[in-house]
Each structure stands twice: as structure tokens, then as C-alpha cells.
């Protein structure tokens, strides 16, 4: 399995790093928060990313995409993670477009994917509910047959970018009870459909999320995404890809927090010497470096397997997400500690990293969840 970048990939990563540093510094995240920006990211920047081909990276050429793999997308996400870039990659590209590609009809794909690739449509997955925790099948929202179509009722929680989504992919039960594997069905619900209401939520990482409430929302037969009752399997597939993708973001986040800390260790003087000359801090910094390198290999392997080795992908996704989740928490904890008091202030960026670290560590299953999954996959 190839774990290093070829020339084109290295060039892509370089471009992405440069773009993120120039157009999306961390200060932008602070401004979005402090100005209580209604969108929470920049539509103009998203459009620009689409022009660079990043939004349609995984889509077929027929829909305006460039047919590259998750590996390439992960390079973009890693670069974005370094700067806490808030644009809707996870919601629109990984989950939204991913669901349409995996289960959409030709008509559904043709209707939405070109708009996605052009950066014009935001798609959100409205599946998790307030009590779902890490169980994708823990769904209580209901869909009742109503003539040709369905009526959807229920409440979805922390829907990523749900507040501005043009299209929501909604999960609801057509059969079974909470946590049953069978009976979950996915639906496409356009923004503005009567009965649909969206309330923005305020998260610790400042990232965009919303409560999506469905009160007898009527959808036609064309709204069905995939076979009725078979939604859980698709949700699991999506989660696995999303776990690998967010691990790449976490790798970028951890690397940047680490580099900032290393720089501070070299620069901050106490007792007449740079604090980085103290052996206890040196050893801890060295251990973080080792953890980073081990996580990097795991994330690269998972991303590669997503494209080239589907049999190995489930295990490697579990490995990447479990390691990256522990890594970001460890790195950001140490980053604050090594910065000392100043690291605790809102004035410094490190706090933003710590908060996003927590959100990503929890997203799509925490480390403990994925370790259990690994044991299941390995038969013990």
C-alpha cells in the first residue's frame, strides 16, 4: 500500500496548504465567531474552492467532478484542518454528495451533483438525533406512507451545516423501533419544504450545526434515497468514510497545534533559557512527535484503502479515527499546558484548536467506539 504522495498529490497538498494559509487563516474563524456570522463560513471562498476542483474532487466528470479519490480529498482536509477551515466539506462533499453517489438515482444525481460540484448547493445529512450518541440506527423520526409519498416527523440534532443546506438528507423510520437495524429509510428534503424548520445551534467549536424539526413534512416518491428500510447500511458506510475524512482534518489540526507549540517552546524564555531546553518538556514534545507520526501513517493508510483496498478499509478507518481522536486531545492538552497561562486565554488561537479537537474526536464515533468496532471486525 502506497503511503507516500506522488508528485501530483504533493503538488495538490502544497496548493491547498498555500491557499488555506492565505485565504483561510485561523483569524477568519475568530472573526466569524465574534461577528456571529449567520452563515458561519464563506460562500465566496466555497465557490473559489469549487473552481479549484476541490468540491467535486470525488465526483464523476459527468457531474462536473474530477474523479479523484478520498486520498486526494484527505490532503485538502488535512490542509484545512491546520487552519480550522470551516467550509462544508464534511457535510456537503463527504456525507451529502457521498450519499447521493452511493444510493441516488440518475435523476437525483443529475439534479444535485453538478450544483454541488460548482459550489452552489450545500447538502446536509440530517440523521442523528439528540439521543443517538454513536448509534447510527438510533432513530426515532418516523416516515409514514401517504399515497405515493411519505409524511416525515421528528427532530434531528447537530445537523452539520443544516442551517444553510439547500438539500437535507433525512433519515426516518418506516419500520421497526429505535436502534433496530432494519426499517430506516433516507429521504431528500429540499430547504423550504413546508413543515421543515431549522434552528441554528451554538457549538463549542463554533462550527455550524442546527436542529432540524420535521412536522408532517410531505415528500413525493422521488424523494426516496435508496431502498426503503435499508438506510442503516448506507449510514454506516457514510460514517466510515466520514471517519477517515475527519481523521485527515484532525491530522492537520494536530500538526498545526504541535508546530505552534514547538515554536513557543523555542521562543518563550523563563529562568533565563528557552523553556524548550527543559528535558521534561523535551521528552513530552518528542513523544507527541512520535504519536503524530504514527497517526499520520494510519490516516494515510485509511485514505489510500478507501480508494484502492475496500477489504482493508473498515479496519484502517477504525485505526485512523481511534488514533487521531486520541492524538488531537493529547496534543491540544499539551499545547495549552506548554503555553501556560497565555494558552488559556481566548486571545491565543490554541483554544480554538482544543475546541475543534474535541468536536472532531467525538464526530462519527469516538476512539472507544472505533476500538470496539475493530474488535468486532477482527472477530474477538
Amino acid at each position, binding site marked *: 500500500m502506497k503511503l507516500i504522495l506522488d508528485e501530483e498529490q504533493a503538488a495538490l497538498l502544497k496548493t491547498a496548504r498555500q491557499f488555506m494559509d492565505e485565504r483561510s487563516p485561523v483569524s477568519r474563524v475568530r472573526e466569524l465567531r465574534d461577528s456571529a456570522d449567520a452563515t458561519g463560513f464563506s460562500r465566496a471562498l466555497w465557490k473559489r474552492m469549487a473552481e479549484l476542483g476541490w468540491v467535486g474532487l470525488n465526483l464523476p466528470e459527468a457531474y462536473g467532478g474530477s474523479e479523484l479519490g478520498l486520498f486526494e480529498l484527505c490532503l485538502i482536509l488535512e490542509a484545512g484542518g491546520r487552519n480550522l477551515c470551516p467550509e462544508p466539506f464534511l457535510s456537503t462533499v463527504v456525507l451529502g454528495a457521498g450519499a447521493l453517489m452511493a444510493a441516488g438515482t440518475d435523476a437525483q444525481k443529475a439534479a444535485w451533483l453538478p450544483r454541488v460540484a460548482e459550489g452552489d448547493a450545500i447538502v446536509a445529512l440530517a440523521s*442523528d438525533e*439528540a*439521543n*443517538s*450518541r*454513536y448509534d447510527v440506527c438510533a432513530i426515532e423520526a418516523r416516515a409514514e406512507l401517504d399515497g405515493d409519498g411519505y409524511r416525515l416527523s421528528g427532530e434531528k*440534532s*447537530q445537523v452539520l451545516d443544516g442551517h444553510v443546506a439547500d438539500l437535507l438528507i433525512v433519515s426516518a423510520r418506516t419500520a421497526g423501533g429505535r436502534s433496530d437495524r432494519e426499517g430506516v429509510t433516507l429521504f431528500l428534503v429540499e430547504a423550504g419544504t413546508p413543515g421543515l424548520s431549522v*434552528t441554528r*445551534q*451554538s*457549538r*463549542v*467549536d*463554533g462550527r455550524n450545526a442546527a*436542529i432540524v424539526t420535521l412536522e408532517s413534512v410531505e415528500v413525493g416518491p422521488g424523494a426516496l434515497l435508496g431502498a426503503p428500510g435499508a438506510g442503516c447500511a448506507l449510514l454506516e458506510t457514510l460514517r466510515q468514510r466520514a471517519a477517515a475524512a475527519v481523521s485527515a482534518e484532525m491530522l492537520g489540526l494536530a500538526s498545526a497545534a504541535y508546530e505552534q507549540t514547538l515554536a513557543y517552546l523555542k521562543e518563550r524564555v*523563563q*529562568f*533565563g*533559557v528557552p*523553556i524548550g*531546553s*527543559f*528535558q*521534561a*518538556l523535551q521528552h513530552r514534545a518528542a513523544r507527541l512527535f512520535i504519536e503524530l507520526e504514527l497517526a499520520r501513517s494510519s490516516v494515510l493508510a485509511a485514505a489510500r484503502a478507501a480508494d484502492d483496498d475496500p477489504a482493508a478499509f473498515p479496519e484502517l478507518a477504525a485505526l485512523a479515527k481511534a488514533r487521531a481522536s486520541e492524538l488531537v*486531545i493529547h496534543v491540544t*492538552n499539551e499545547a*495549552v*499546558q506548554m503555553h*501556560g*497561562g*497565555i*494558552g*488559556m*486565554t*481566548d*486571545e491565543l488561537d*490554541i*483554544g480554538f484548536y*482544543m*475546541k475543534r479537537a*474535541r*468536536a472532531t474526536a*467525538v*464526530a462519527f464515533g*469516538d476512539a*472507544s467506539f472505533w476500538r*470496539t468496532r475493530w474488535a468486532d471486525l477482527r472477530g474477538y
Partner: protein
Amino acid sequence: MALDEAFGDEVRRWLEEHAPRSLRGTRRGRFDGFWGGRKATGVDPDVLRWRDMMAERGFTAPTWPRQYGGAGLSAADARTLDQELARLGLPPAVVGFGLTMIGPTLLDYGTEAQKRRHLPAICRGEIRWCQGYSEPQAGSDLASLRTRAVPDGDAFVVDGQKVWTSYADLSDWIFCLVRTDPAAKKQQGITFLLIDMETPGVTARRIALISGASPFCEVFLEGVRVPRAQVVGEVNGGWTVAKALLGYERSMIGEAIGGQLATSEAQLVSGARRHLGAAAGPLPDPSLRDAIVRNAMDERAFALTIERARQGVQSGRAPGPESSIMKVAGSELKQRRWELAVRIAGPAGLGWEGPGFAADDLEATREWLRSRANTIEGGTSEIQLDILARRVLGLPSGKEAGR
């Protein structure tokens, strides 16, 4: 009947008869109470009445000498008093750095005039104190502080900046370290000063933390005139005073944490029951269950260690740099507890504010962020471990300058 039993009986009767009913059963931690000071507003009249009746008998500082506003009690009687207060769930009548930090320091190092001026006011909660030690360039390396005090007649003129001063904006006086001899070796040119916050040139400004609003302030000192009579200890001899005070601070932090931890296991378990949807029986997530046990065991061991140290002191052992144990262990314990609380909450623990997030979870998330400072404030864990290694374990000093 022994004398101490008689004291207990008398106090019990007195409290049962006079303590405000509205305050009974409201006791929480040792530091939840009336912080006092000239800027305190809107204080419940029962709290003031409680303060007055307790201060009257010297019970706000029970072991301090009577002439300075204390009750002159033995450690054993003070403990009896505290047990009787606890029995009725009564909060401390006055709390704050006056009682825990500057008061004990003045008892040891203050002039008679300083004691008479400041200690009674502390006992009555009339003056609220804050601590001006850290500076932007002097964190762990406290002795590298740069705030300068230049003699000018019978006063010093102080210029500089302090940081991490809790509630400076609500305090009346600040105790400060300042540099009075820039030519001397680091620790030797420092003086310990008491400064009235109303002196012209003193301003305080709050600091925002990663967990949101905070009680911490920056304090700016610009041409502040401070009479020489407000020096504690010797001019250029402030480091000795400062170290003694840090010892009080460390044991205070340890005890404070001990108090806060008492209910943590029950809270974590009930959080886990709520988030895992398991009303009774063994928690269905064995990994979380084990983590809660580890936390509970750590807390129990910590509480037992505080108790053992307390008994040791009572039986005549001097408290020493072992207080660093309490600081390191207690602060990390608290961090792990909140780390675990947000882990238990999972996705529900990602809220910053409503809607869609439970109040308990929102609190846990803020506390988790706030707790990251526990291993930094009051002397970083690294500094505490250095102290432990050198002073308690007797390991030889490295060649790093100044430590």
C-alpha cells in the same frame, strides 16, 4: 465532660439558636460564601447578619489571635466549630484570599501596625484582597518579574503590569511582588507590597478565557505611589514572604479541590445513565464504567491523603513542600474528572450554549475547558514536580539557570 466537648456543645446551641434559617443547608464548598469588600453589592441581609454574628465571636478566622479579630481557638476547637457548622449546613461567613493567603502571611511577617490595620478588616470581610504575582513575562519563573518600584521619599512609585489576578476588579487591596533592586540577583531584588486598589494609577481589566468569561484580570500599575509602611517584610526581602504565601496557596488549592470532588462520582454516574439510556444496573459501556471507577478511586485516595496529612499536622508534624503533591494530584484529578464528563456526554457535550443542549452538559463543557488551567495556575505542575524532586526527594539540581 472534656473541655472541647463543652466548647462543641456551647457552639452547637448558639448556632441552633442564632444562625439564619435561610442559610442552613446551603453550605457547598469552603470557598462558596461571602467574599466581602467595599464593592460587594446586593448582598442578602441574612448573609450580612451571619457575617456580623460570626465575626463578633472571631469565628471567621477561628485560629487567629483575638486581638486581630480571631477567636484564638486551638486547631482541635476550630475543627469542632467547622463540624458544627457543617452539621447545620452553614456556609463560611466570610471567604477569600484575605483569610487564606495574606492574613496568615501578615501574622508571620507583618508589622504590628499592619496586623492591626488589616487583619480585623479581613475577619469582618470589609476588605477584599487579590494577588499580584504573575506578569506576562514572569509565569513559572516568577522571580523574573519586571514591575518596578522606585523609592521616592517615604513611598515607592510602582510601574508595571500584573496578570492572572482573580477578581482584581472586585477587590479593594492587592498584595504584590515588585522589583526594588534591578541590579541584584533575581530573587534578591524583590519586595512584597500591599497596595490599595483605589490609589491613582491602578486599573484592572478582565481576561476572556477559552472557557468564556473569567474572574481573571490584568492589573496595570502606572506611577502608583505606595507608602513604605505598606512593605511586608524587608525591602528586597519579598521573596521569602512570597514563598511562604505560595505554600498557603498550594494547600488552599488542594483543599478546595478536595471539597469540590466529593460529589463527582454520583454526578458522573448519573450523567452516564442519562447519556447511555440506562436507568439502573451495571452501566452498559464497560469502558466508561471503568473510567468512572478510576476517577472515583483517584478521588477517594486523594481525599484520604488530604485527611492523613491533616491528621499528621494535628498530631504535630509540620506541613512541608508535600503540599505540592496536593496541588499536582488535585489539579490533574479535576482535569480528568471533567475530561471524563465530556467523554460521557459524547456528542451532547459539544454545546457552547442552547438550544439543543442540556444545562448540565453545557456546564460540563465549560468546566472541562476551565479545568485545563488547573495545572497552570498557582504554579504549574512542572514547577510543582521540580519542587517535589528537589526539596522533598532531595534530587540534585540540574545545571539549568535559576531553578
